[in-house]
C-alpha cells in the first residue's frame, strides 16, 4: 500500500510541478498513439465499410484475418516491424528504427484491425433496408458512405476508442522499435517498464497513474461524443 500511496503523491507532485521530462513523455505518448489511431481510423473505417458492403471471393477469410489481427500480440508486431526497419531488413534504407515514426507504424498495425473489425460490425448492424433507402434517395457513393458512417457512428466511435485504448497501453512494440530513447522515443508505458527495472516503484506507479488519467480523459471525451450522438 505504501508504494501505491507514494505513487499517488509522486504523480500529484509531477503534475503540479509540471516536470519537464514527464511532460515531454506524456506529450510524446499523445503524439505517437494519437497519430497511429488517426492513421488507423483513416484506413480502417473505409476498409471496414468496403468489406461490410461487398461480397467477393475470399471475404470470409479476410474477415477471419481482421478478427485475428484484433488480438495480435504487440511484441510480435514489434518484432516484425523491427525486422523490416533493421539495417538489413527490406526497409532498412529508410533508417527509421528507434524513431517515433517506427513506433507509429507498429502501433498503426496494432490498431488497424481493431478499427476495421469493429467498423465492419457497426456497418453490418445498419438495417440493410436503410442502405436501399439511401440509394433510393439518389445518394452518390460518397454520400452513401457518409450516411452509413453516420448511422453506424456509435459502433464506429467504439472502434476508435478500442483502437486508441489498445495502442496507448501497449509496451512491447514501442519498446522494441522505439528503443525507449530518452527525450526521443520514450513514452509512458516504456518509461514505466524502465523505472520498474531500476526499482523505482514510486515513479513507475506515478507514470502508470498518469497513463491511466490520460487514457481516462481521452476515452471520456470520445465516450461523451458517442453518447451525445446516441441521445
Amino acid at each position: 500500500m505504501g508504494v501505491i500511496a507514494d505513487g499517488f503523491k509522486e504523480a500529484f507532485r509531477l503534475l503540479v510541478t509540471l516536470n519537464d521530462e514527464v511532460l515531454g513523455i506524456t506529450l510524446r505518448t499523445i503524439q505517437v498513439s494519437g497519430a497511429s489511431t488517426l492513421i488507423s481510423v483513416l484506413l480502417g473505417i473505409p476498409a471496414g465499410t468496403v468489406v461490410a458492403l461487398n461480397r467477393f471471393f475470399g471475404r470470409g477469410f479476410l474477415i477471419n484475418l481482421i478478427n485475428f489481427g484484433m488480438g495480435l500480440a504487440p511484441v510480435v508486431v514489434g518484432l516484425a516491424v523491427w525486422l523490416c526497419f533493421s539495417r538489413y531488413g527490406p526497409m532498412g534504407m529508410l533508417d527509421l528504427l528507434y524513431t517515433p515514426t517506427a513506433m507509429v507504424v507498429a502501433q498503426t498495425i496494432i490498431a488497424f484491425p481493431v478499427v476495421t473489425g469493429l467498423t465492419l460490425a457497426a456497418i453490418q448492424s445498419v438495417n440493410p433496408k436503410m442502405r436501399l433507402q439511401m440509394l433510393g434517395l439518389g445518394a452518390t457513393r460518397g454520400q452513401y458512405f457518409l450516411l452509413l458512417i453516420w448511422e453506424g457512428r456509435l459502433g464506429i466511435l467504439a472502434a476508435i476508442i478500442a483502437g486508441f485504448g489498445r495502442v496507448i497501453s501497449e509496451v512491447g512494440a514501442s519498446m522494441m522499435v522505439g528503443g525507449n530513447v530518452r527525450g526521443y522515443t520514450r513514452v509512458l508505458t516504456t518509461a514505466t517498464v524502465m523505472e520498474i527495472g531500476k526499482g523505482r516503484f514510486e515513479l513507475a506507479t506515478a507514470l502508470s497513474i498518469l497513463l491511466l488519467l490520460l487514457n481516462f480523459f481521452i476515452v471520456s471525451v470520445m465516450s461523451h461524443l458517442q453518447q451525445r450522438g446516441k441521445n
Partner: protein
Amino acid sequence: MNSVLAAKDLHLVLNGRNVFTIDNLTLLDGEVMALVGPNGAGKSSLLLTLALLQTPTQGTIVFKGQTVSRENLFSFRRRMALVFREALLIDTTVSRNITIALRIRGISGHEASIRRERWLERFGIIHLARRQARQLSGGEAQRASLARAFALEPEVLFLDEPFASLDYPTRKALLKDLGGILREMGMTAVFVTHDPTEIPYLATRVGVLHNGCIIKLGTVQEVLGSELPDIKELSLWPD
C-alpha cells in the same frame, strides 16, 4: 396518357429461384398502380426492380421513353422516390431528414426550405420538425418518410407496404391523407400491398401477382368488381 415507366420481358432469378416474370407492364402518367398478392408473390422485388434498386436477370425498363442502362441508371434513380414499410429515417431530426434528402439531390437553400415546410405542413407534422426521428411514433415516422419522399418531387413514387406496420386508425388516417395528396398532385406511383382494403384509397389500376406472374391487371373496378364495397372479404388470389 404517356407511359412513364415500362417493363418488357422482365425476369428476376435470385438464388436459383424464379422471383418474377413480367412480359409487359406499363405505368401511365398520373396513375397509381397497386401491386397486390400473397407473401412471396414477388411484389416487393418487382417494385425494387422498377425503382432501379434491383438489377433484373433479363429484360428492359424504359423510363420516359429512354431505356435504362448502367450509364443512365443513377440519373433516373434520382427522379424517383421510395417509401418502405419501415420509415427508415436517418438518425437525426425530422427536418434534417428532409434537408439531407434534398441536399443529396442537389437542392439546398431557399428552395429546400420551401419544400421542407410545405411537405411537413401537408402531412400534418410541422410541429415535429425538430423532433428526433427515433422519438416518433410509427404513424408519425411514416408521415415523415412520406414528406421526405414528396419533398423530392419525384416523377414516380414507389411505396412498399407503407402502412403494414401501423395500427388501424393510424393507417386509415394516413391512407386518406395520402390518397388525397396523390390525386391532388396527379402523382405517378406504384404501391405494393397485401391488404386489398387499401386499394380503393390510393390506386387507379391494380395488378395481381401470383408466383411471380401478373394474373390480373385492370382498373380497380375491373379487378375488385362488384365486391368492391366489401373488400375486406375479398380473395384476390388463389390459395
